């Protein structure tokens, strides 16, 4: 049994390595303005948030809807930290306020601080919120996300957050350099690496003793507590870690978008993420990743034609007008929710043994428990 697991692991590593090589090659050979790079970058960022949300909702069984709030904290922390001091001192961004933060950091430090800031807020919010049960937790975390948004828009904090106005001119994806050189780092590959490392850490966590404790809490809180698992400590841990990665992904989103504004991080964003998690399968890391890329590709690329008058070569500007894409998209989502309520992957992970088994149509008893992992 152990040997087979190891083989699976190596195949998974090889598959992931292959994906990275493919991304690197694609980026060097194709026109970088092609929409596919938008999909890849945004998809990777959404994968990270979806996985972090899955850690909380899928693996620990905490139905939290605060993800957008933590992304906001991450995005703002990152933009405040990495905006060059010279930019802060001129009027170009802080138009109506005098910037209070008078230092700047590099990208890496910025990303870490983004995660830490989100984690810190999560630790504070977790104290009251995590004692609540299911729906109440959902609605309270949603409420906290809204409060965070209001705080970041408050004009009293303007010298730090630029009030409700746009943050820009911080270090973005085009500012990433290959270490010790001045050569720009391929942006898509960078996003993939950053998100990949984070997701790998989450996978390691889930497969560790702590991950098992989280699952125990999800399956049966009373039994978990009776077996010596401190509920609050572990819930808080899961919440803080999930928020850390939500913060990092917020920072990555800020890097990708070039500009960031608090108004973006509404409840609708959390719903969108939740739908991604559900489409991928609650409790499946690979499902969340696949669903993120599909979701982004569909909304940004494949279905765009529905909005722009022309789809599949059919020219019908009166039918395919603005908004049709989202209408069709929401119907598809509704069908997935109703008819495939377990999502693409259920709570399983992609595994090659599983794929081969399915291919051979030989269903064995153990088929539901593939052991491989995939980024």
């Amino acid at each position: 049994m152990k040997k087979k697991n190891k083989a699976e692991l190596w195949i998974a590593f090889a598959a992931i390595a292959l994906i990275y090589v493919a991304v690197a090659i694609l980026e060097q050979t194709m026109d970088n303005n092609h929409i596919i790079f938008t999909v890849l970058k945004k998809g990777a960022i959404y994968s990270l948030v979806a996985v972090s949300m899955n850690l909380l909702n899928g693996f620990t069984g905490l139905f939290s809807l605060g993800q957008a709030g933590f992304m906001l904290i991450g995005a703002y922390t990152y933009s405040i930290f990495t905006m060059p001091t010279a930019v802060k001192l001129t009027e170009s961004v802080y138009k109506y306020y005098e910037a209070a933060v008078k230092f700047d950091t590099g990208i890496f430090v910025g990303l870490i601080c983004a995660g830490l800031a989100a984690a810190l807020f999560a630790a504070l919010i977790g104290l009251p919120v995590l004692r609540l049960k299911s729906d109440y937790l959902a609605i309270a975390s949603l409420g906290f996300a809204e409060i965070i948004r209001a705080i970041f828009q408050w004009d009293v904090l303007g010298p730090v957050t630029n009030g409700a106005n746009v943050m820009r001119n911080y270090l973005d994806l085009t500012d990433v350099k290959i270490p010790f050189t001045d050569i720009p780092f391929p942006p898509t590959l960078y996003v993939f690496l950053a998100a990949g490392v984070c997701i790998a850490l989450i996978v390691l966590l889930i497969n560790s003793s702590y991950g098992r404790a989280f699952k125990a809490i999800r399956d049966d809180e009373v039994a978990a507590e009776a077996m010596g698992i401190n509920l609050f400590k572990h819930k808080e841990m899961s919440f803080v870690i999930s928020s850390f990665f939500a913060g990092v992904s917020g920072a990555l989103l800020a890097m990708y978008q070039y500009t960031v504004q608090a108004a973006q991080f509404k409840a609708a964003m959390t719903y969108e993420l939740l739908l991604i998690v559900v489409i991928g399968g609650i409790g499946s890391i690979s499902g969340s990743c696949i669903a993120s890329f599909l979701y982004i590709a569909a909304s940004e690329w494949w279905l765009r034609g529905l909005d722009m008058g022309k789809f599949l070569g059919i020219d019908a500007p009166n039918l395919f007008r603005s908004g049709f894409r989202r209408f069709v998209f929401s119907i598809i989502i509704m069908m997935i929710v109703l008819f495939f309520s377990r999502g693409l992957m259920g709570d399983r992970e992609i595994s090659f043994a599983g794929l081969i088994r399915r291919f051979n149509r030989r269903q064995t008893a153990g088929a539901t428990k593939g052991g491989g992992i995939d980024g």
Partner: protein
Amino acid sequence: MKKLAAILLVLVLVVSTAACSAPAATTTDTAAADQSASGNPVVKVGVYEPASGDNGAGGKQETLGIEYANDVSPTVEINGTTYDVQLVKVDNESSNDKAASAASTLVSAGVSVVLGSYGSGVSIAASPTFEAAGIPCIGITCTNPQVTEGNTHYFRICFLDPFQGTVLANYAFSTLGVKTAYCLSKLGDDYSGGLVNYFVKAFEALGGTCVQDTFPDGNSDFTSYINNAKNSGAEVFFSPVSTEAAQLIIDQAESQSLGMPILAGDTWDSNVILQAAKGKNVDVTVTTFYPEGANAEFDSSFKEWVNADATRLANNGGDDTVAAVTAMGYDAYFFALEAMKKAGSIEPAAIMEALWSTTYTGVSGPIALDQVNGDAIRNTAYVKHCNNETGAWDALPPVTIG
């Protein structure tokens, strides 16, 4: 039930396979200059405008101007070659967070130049995406200075908020003779926030005082703001917000009997406002880029074009009023063509270079750009007053500064 489920399943499959085959269709479009039906090479012009959300109404009117111009002049001759001009339209949904992805759609469609957007916020938010792709943009009616400040790819053909704010402050202080103004802007909105800021600066410099307030996104209850204005002792209500909010403000101003004139910027120059204010006891004055009637020829031919098609008429708000933004959109299109001719190329980089020295005389007046930020040198704003009986604009004397 099962049957229904099966049918739905098939439907999903069809849609998703359709979705999967769609990229083939879009990728063929991405080459920069392919052949059109007429056999001419094509130059793509991106239309980056909101068609939905807060600024949807204005965005549609601005787009109409561009479409009309495209109808009038569907080709352009560059260095002896005739190109068909193809408009690539994308809806930025008036939302800053949709800006980046809408912009990258245009970038990946291979446009040579981008026109828009109505609303400064989305322009600022999308600016870096266009910058990274090296595509020049021409702001049509986005008046916030930050759109063009500190960059070399964003240009603009209208006046700026510091100018507009000053005009409005002068109008309030000198013409209306008021000393206290209540200023309402939308939280996190660059346009209204910026204009209020410049208005306040100018108004206070004249010796007046201002009370400022903001409302959050999605707010539709303005009664408390109107009461705030009344209680603050203000004599004028300055709210240069989106037309969406404007409708509500006008409606609630009447029911709460605001009792003071309302002053606003270019966004309110819209038939949406006229329709909302018609027959109501409100006093609305706005500043704008172009007064209807300034160019009779343009007005009448545009009206004819709009009335010829029900969709156009709907996009223009249901009547054939000529909005200032429409005239500006019309001018922006020709300004872009002029730049292409000057550049002698459809390469974005060449057009960007040429834009600095492009000049053009449009229906809204002569356009030339300054050499600092690429802003139009304009010193005239038109002032209009809403006639509550006829539901039309009455022109007041235009204001020229400097």
